[in-house]
């Protein structure tokens, strides 16, 4: 896997986001490095405040003006951080489509649904009115809107949250993007609707052969729907790797704790839910060492002093930043765990 | 002629007064920005000048010639803003005008505050017909340009200092009443009001002791811009020739009487224009500053 690899779509290298405050710079995200291959689904997991949304905003170049993004965010070989505003606008919506957390506020109530879907394709692909309309209606029916033609001409207030999120997905797909980012796209929806939307996203990713990033605080969401997993904690990447491997054999203590907090089907009913004691560190005073040290059962003195570097697996696909990792299990154990979580 | 943007401010304040703080909370003494310092300073200076104008040593009398007519400003006390077409000191006339204007507006505001606050509190406390009457009055005044109301009165009873005070007074009663009403309604079922009631306190006592103190901040913040509006209205009427009768100096009247000579002596109008614009600006700035602090405080609760 080299930098110019044709199979790499998104290549983030040492990405940091710093907020300028009256008391000096505040690092919200530090040294985030990962790669996303084409046609691959990546899950980004972390508690609120871990820096998930900041990372996405940084990738999209949508950070507020008081936040500085440093590092390299390569999209198809072009660096999004260094590129001029106009070039970035030409990529957003075209190569990258995004679905946001709250469908109720993501659609402009004053603009017709159709307009909101085809404005990107008319801008980026220079489609004519009729072409864009035909494409938008096809998209609406693909995302499961019952009356796509009617929906196209309607204003958004007519639709429920789930329907609105489907419309938002159609909007994000208007230019056939190579990457679809879903930022907590189901968090605001009813539990019954959440699964439908996730299944839809997964299906679309397969059909359209695009890459996808699912951002979530909920491990269950990414379990069977992503190929790779990136775990963020306190503004840092603490573990990444193929989803199955991370699930089966987490190496970072935080990932392990997170996994054991997910209710599992193979445990007897009424088993007490495990939780992680303590709270994530305040970005105002993050410790010098590992951000998880204060809550970590295995923390040693040096965990508090210095930030552990990435340790890589034998094949280099699974990495974790921990001085006292969870011991790697034997082959038998891996299979058992993978079965239990799927 | 009152700046109509005040209506919007008034709405904000109605909303703000709906979130009363405990009676102990006061507007904290703020850190002021440069232009706010200027505004408070200018108003303080103007009030001082208006009060002390008769005893300022060496200041010429406003209605007697002091030097040559229509002189440009020069570096002396009486000539600082020049002289008018009758040779009178413009500075002296501006300061005496300030006394007249501020005096009239102060009385008018006192009338409006006293009646408006009382009516508004009763309307908010007892609701029913009192509230409907207060709303009707406020709606009526809001639908007429202030100048038209006063002109209609002047057409019948003629213009005098007393007419002007009363006429300006009735303009703002509705605004004050609405703010007081909103504040009372928001407090009616607050714990401290219910507690006072449970202890058998009389309505009058509840209104005066429990509710009134919480209305003060919102009312304080709306006074400066409304006073500015009254100053503009009074100035407009004087400008049109329906203000307090001459020879009493007034800013609007001074501007009006200089307009014929404007092409030859444009500097004549500088003094009174500066006086009224700076006064209105300062009062609006003070009002904004108070309203912002009030909102900040409510947000922090």
């Amino acid at each position, binding site marked *: 896997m080299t930098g110019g690899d044709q199979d790499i779509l998104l290549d983030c290298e040492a990405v940091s986001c710093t907020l300028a405050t009256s008391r000096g710079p505040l690092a919200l995200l530090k040294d985030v490095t990962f790669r996303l291959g084409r046609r691959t689904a990546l899950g980004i997991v972390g508690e609120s405040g871990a820096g998930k949304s900041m990372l996405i905003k940084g990738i999209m170049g*949508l950070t507020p003006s008081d936040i500085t993004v440093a590092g390299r965010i390569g999209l198809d070989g072009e660096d999004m951080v260094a590129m001029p505003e106009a070039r970035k*606008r*030409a990529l*957003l*919506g075209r190569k990258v489509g*995004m679905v*946001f957390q709250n469908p109720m506020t*993501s*659609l*402009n*109530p*004053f*603009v*017709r649904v159709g307009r909101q879907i085809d*404005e*990107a394709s008319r*801008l980026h692909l220079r489609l004519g009115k009729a072409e864009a309309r035909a494409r938008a209606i096809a998209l609406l029916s693909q995302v499961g809107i019952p009356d796509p033609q009617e929906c196209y001409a309607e*204003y958004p*207030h007519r639709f429920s949250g789930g329907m609105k999120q489907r419309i*938002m997905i159609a*909007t994000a797909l*208007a230019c056939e993007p190579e990457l679809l980012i879903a930022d907590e796209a189901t968090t605001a929806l009813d539990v019954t609707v959440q699964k439908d939307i996730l299944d839809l996203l997964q299906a679309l990713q397969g059909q359209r052969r695009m890459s996808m990033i699912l951002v979530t605080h909920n491990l269950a969401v990414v379990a069977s729907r992503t190929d790779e997993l990136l775990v963020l904690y306190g503004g840092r990447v603490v573990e990444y790797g193929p989803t199955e491997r991370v699930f089966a054999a987490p190496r970072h203590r935080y990932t392990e704790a997170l996994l054991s907090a997910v209710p599992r089907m193979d445990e007897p009913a009424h088993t007490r839910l495990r939780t992680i004691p303590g709270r994530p560190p305040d970005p105002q005073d993050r410790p010098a060492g590992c951000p998880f040290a204060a809550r970590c059962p295995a923390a040693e003195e040096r965990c508090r002093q210095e930030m552990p570097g990435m340790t890589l697996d034998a094949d280099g696909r699974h990495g974790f930043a921990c001085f006292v990792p969870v011991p790697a299990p034997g082959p038998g154990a891996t299979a058992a765990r993978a079965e239990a979580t799927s | *002629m009152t*700046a*109509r*943007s005040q*209506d*919007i401010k008034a709405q904000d304040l109605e909303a703000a007064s709906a979130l009363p703080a405990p009676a102990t909370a006061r507007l904290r003494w703020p850190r002021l920005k440069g*232009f706010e310092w200027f505004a408070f300073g200018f108003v303080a200076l103007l009030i001082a000048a208006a009060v002390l104008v008769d005893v300022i040593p060496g200041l010429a009398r406003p209605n007697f010639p002091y030097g040559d007519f229509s002189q440009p400003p020069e570096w002396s006390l009486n000539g600082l803003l020049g002289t008018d077409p009758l040779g009178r000191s413009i500075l002296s006339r501006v300061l005496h005008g300030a006394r007249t204007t501020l005096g009239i507006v102060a009385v008018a505001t006192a009338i409006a505050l006293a009646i408006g606050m009382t009516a508004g509190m009763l309307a908010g406390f007892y609701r029913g017909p009192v509230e409907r009457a207060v*709303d009707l009055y406020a*709606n*009526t005044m*809001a*639908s007429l*340009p202030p100048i*038209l109301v006063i*002109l*209609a009165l*002047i*057409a*019948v*009873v003629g213009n005098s200092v007393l007419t002007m005070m009363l006429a300006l007074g009735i303009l703002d009663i509705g605004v004050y009443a609405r703010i007081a009403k909103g504040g009372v309604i928001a407090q009616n079922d607050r714990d401290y009001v219910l507690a006072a009631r449970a202890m058998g306190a009389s309505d009058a006592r509840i209104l005066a002791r429990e509710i009134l103190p919480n209305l003060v901040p919102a009312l304080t913040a709306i006074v400066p811009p409304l006073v500015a509006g009254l100053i*503009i209205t009074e*100035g*407009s009427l004087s*400008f*049109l020739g*329906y203000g307090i009768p001459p020879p009493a100096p007034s800013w*609007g009247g001074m*501007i009006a009487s200089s*307009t014929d000579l*404007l*092409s030859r002596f*444009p500097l004549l109008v500088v003094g009174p*224009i500066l006086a009224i*614009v700076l006064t*209105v*600006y300062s009062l*609006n*700035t003070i009002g904004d500053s108070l309203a912002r602090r009030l909102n900040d405080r409510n947000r922090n609760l």
Partner: protein
Amino acid sequence: MASDHPYLKAAARRLAAGVPVFLVVTFAATALSSLAPGSAAQLILGENATPEQIASLNAQYGYNLPVIERYLLWLGKLVRGDLGLTLYSQQPVAGLLFDRAAVTFEIAFLAMGLSLLVGVPLAMVTASRPGGAIDKALLAVTSVMLSIPTFVTVVVLGFLFAIVLRWLPATGWVRFAEDPLGNLKSAALPVLCLSVHQAASFYRVSRAEFVSVLQEDYVLVARAKGLPTHTIMLRHAFRAAMPQVLTVMGLSMTYLLGGSFIVESYFAVPGIGWTVLSAVNSHDFPVMQAILSLTVVIFVVVFMLVDLGYALIDPRVEVA
């Protein structure tokens, strides 16, 4: 369903609240003449009036009747579109008012249009970069503009454009039917003077509104689609900010009517303001009463239109 909607209900409520206001104002206007020291007829005719003159005036205008009776008579005539005759020229008040109102409305609408054209686009520019240098400068400039009374504006702009630059006529009015270009020229100074305050006020309100609309999620979505700033402003923010601008347009009607008194008297424009001033001088009660009534009607109608405007702008309202 349409009548259930909040905006339409608000419009209906506005009308319902307007009726008592109208009655109060018109009744007060009728009662006003009773406040006159001595009698109304005496006030109108002056010290030297003969008893015969007073009797004939009372016979024609009913100033000796009880207020209630006089008010009901006036209301009865109003229903038939009769506002009475002016005191001196004995013209029908309604016709006179119609002519004068046309002039005032022309000036008011031009001023509103000009202020919107200046204030709203500027707000769109600065709202996308709040706190920037232009933004700060404009906030300072507009807070001064809002502090300048109209009677100062007319003197300063009149001096500048009519005396120093000699671009525009200082006084007078040319009717549109006689000379359209001359009409615009004679309207220019009055319109400019009324626009100083209005443009600043439209700027302030729309800037604040745009700043808050730009915080909306759907604006972030629009940015994520790669839309350029001007498209986001025009397509996504503009309509959302309209209701607030509309409210200020409604409020500005009272300001513009009040401003017309100053502007029309200073530039000798025969509109409503000018008419009121001459009616005050001559104690022409029928004219004053008609103008007070007209003002209230304008106010109620304008705010009803504002409420209906909200309903038109907001797609969530379905106007059947």
